[in-house]
């Protein structure tokens, strides 16, 4: 769930090619912006960094960070500036750079690299298979999306480290391939390896996290277990904008506001969550950020397809009152609550909402959080979560005002 991903973007000569409109580079940048937004929307406690490769070198243009705004602003700036890439890409340099940063992370975090490669060649200083073996040993999962054609070394890299390899046919397919990486990968994939030892899977550990409250001037500060934040009404500087510059590159202007989130360990102030405290290193999140990932653990059971016939007596969709016409061949039924839904509702429920309206309204089934998935949870690859665990989850992680 806590993912750390590096995106390696190719800035070589091959990206100026115009087979993706307007150029491969501009198309990639636009789709990357959308990808970053979706990624942080679906994985709010994850981090992402960006590396580019050009002129046989690799540069890290954005460190691993949890706030999407910085990345998006950077990409927009790059698009507006003139084309600054060129030369040949260097896959090995980029991978070594990502590796040097990812190996420092704790073992419970999932480490991933996504490579967007438009060139068919790479210029490397050493043996790239040694780098690939190194990545496999550390457990970094590399995936490649090629824009030109299938390249053997990319396929080998993806296969050895347990990632995916795809080649984009056009921009719509490219977008689909990108969005496949928004979903969190399964935690324990068996990595096929011929002779060496199996790669280490991400270990589980308890991560210390803080849940700060938002204090605004005029409202009383909470007491109790933690230290007191500063007096309400006082203007204080926030730690996230200490290094902020003015828009036109002027002098350093730290931001002072009267409200914000105070770290429970060291009382430094931050404007928004999730963030890692710069002073004490504690990860600060709020409960909805954790809740946003729960639907991966409790998915809605797929509905069964039924033909729409006159005799079956199925008139309309249960949730949106859409009347089935003679053009609709199929309807979809949930096997837990036996309600019938139309195709649009089926897609909406499974892709976006992750709640079956029929099951959630029924007193016998609403607590199963995914409609009948207590058996499914037993067999799911993410762990042996029992039905008891689901109700505990619901009754414990809640906030009172």
């Amino acid at each position: 769930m806590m993912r750390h991903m590096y995106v390696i973007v190719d800035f070589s000569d091959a990206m100026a090619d115009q087979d993706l409109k307007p150029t491969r580079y501009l198309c990639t940048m636009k789709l990357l912006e959308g990808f970053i937004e979706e990624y942080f929307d679906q994985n709010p406690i994850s981090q992402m960094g960006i590396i580019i490769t050009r002129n046989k070198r690799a540069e890290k243009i954005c460190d691993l960070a949890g706030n999407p705004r910085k990345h998006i602003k950077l990409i927009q700036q790059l698009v507006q500036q003139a084309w600054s890439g060129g030369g040949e890409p260097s896959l090995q340099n980029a991978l070594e750079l990502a590796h040097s940063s990812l190996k420092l992370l704790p073992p419970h975090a999932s480490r991933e690299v996504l490579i967007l490669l438009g060139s068919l060649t790479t210029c490397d200083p050493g043996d790239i298979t040694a780098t690939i073996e190194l990545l496999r040993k550390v457990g970094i999962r590399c995936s490649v999306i090629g824009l030109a054609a299938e390249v053997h070394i990319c396929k080998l890299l993806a296969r050895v480290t347990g990632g995916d390899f795809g080649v984009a046919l056009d921009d719509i397919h490219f977008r689909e391939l990108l969005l496949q990486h928004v979903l969190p990968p399964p935690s324990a994939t068996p990595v096929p390896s011929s002779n060496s030892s199996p790669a280490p899977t991400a270990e589980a550990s308890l991560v210390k996290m803080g849940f700060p409250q938002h204090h605004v001037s005029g409202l009383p500060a909470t007491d109790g277990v933690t230290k007191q934040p500063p007096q309400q009404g006082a203007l204080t500087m926030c730690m996230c904008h200490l290094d902020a510059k003015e828009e036109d590159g002027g002098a350093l202007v730290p931001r002072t506001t009267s409200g914000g989130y105070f770290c429970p360990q060291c009382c430094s102030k931050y404007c928004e969550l999730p963030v890692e405290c710069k002073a004490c290193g504690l990860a600060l999140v709020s409960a909805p950020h954790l809740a946003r990932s729960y639907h991966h653990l409790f998915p809605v059971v797929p509905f069964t397809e039924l033909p729409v016939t006159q005799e079956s007596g199925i008139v309309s969709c249960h949730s949106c009152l859409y009347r089935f016409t003679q053009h609709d061949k199929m309807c979809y039924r949930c096997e837990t609550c036996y309600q019938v839904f139309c195709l649009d509702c089926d897609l909406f429920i499974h892709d976006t909402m992750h709640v079956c309206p029929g099951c959630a309204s029924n007193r016998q089934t609403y607590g199963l959080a995914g409609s009948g998935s207590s058996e499914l949870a037993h067999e799911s690859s993410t762990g042996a979560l029992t039905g008891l665990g689901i109700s505990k989850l619901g009754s414990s992680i809640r906030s009172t005002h």
Partner: protein
Amino acid sequence: MADEVESSLLIVIIDTNPSQRIFRDGSQTLTQILESVIAFSNSHLMMKCNNKLAIIACHSQCSKYLYPSVNAGDEEMADDGDFRNMQQVDGQYEMFTLVEKTVRKAIHKLISSSDHDEVESLQGNGSSCSGGDSLLAGSLAMALCYVHRLNKENPSSRKMNSRILVITASGDSASQYMNFMNVFFTAQKCNVVMDVCSLDQDHGLLQQGCDITGGLYLKIPQMQGLLQYLLWVFLPEPPIRKKLVLPPPVKVDYRAACFCHRELIDIGYVCSICLSVFCKFSPICTTCHTVFKTAAPLPLRAKKKRIKLT
């Protein structure tokens, strides 16, 4: 050139669960609530000619649409809500008569059928299964599906803003936490604003939902003034709200509660597999039974002995 008039979709979810305290305390409460809601809905339809409306009742065993009418072949109304065949009250706009009659008919049917089910279940196993929390998350999910369908059917030239108003008197229901959070995030993604009008007690999860989607939460001090509060506070559409001075947002506590003691905590330990929160370090996660590696103790270094100089 005609201006684009943005139409507005309002979905009202009425909590009709009979086990709520306000229904036990007074016998006319449901009638009063329904009449206020019908008057409010008609006011909404009156604001613009292309405003849309839906009303859902969240009952003890199921959630049903009160308006638009689900059934085909009603004696009074045709299946698409055609009001040509309806008996009209003189002087009332036909649309309003349609809303009123449809809602009254549907609620009558809903309550009489649920009474029938309850009597049957009482005779069957001797225990009533109608008590308990209101299953609002299911009604919210249905409302979101309806919004999704109308957004698809709406031609892209016309803009439509959507909002959901929940009128409830029930309290917090922690067992529906997951369903509620999924619904809130979906509403946020679809730009649907969720307002809550609470009649009796505060509802913590719905407050979070209003905060997440950018809606209004209001707890009404007096039931008699329900229609007034609805018209003053909840009638304006979301784009207009920034020009008005509306009740201030409630401060919502987003801290998590630990699994072991169910207390709100400031610092906790989160299992990286299942994301359950604990207040103390423990070697095994009680939800997913993963074993955690505890830090090994540091190896002891042999101390250098001081040599006494004689």
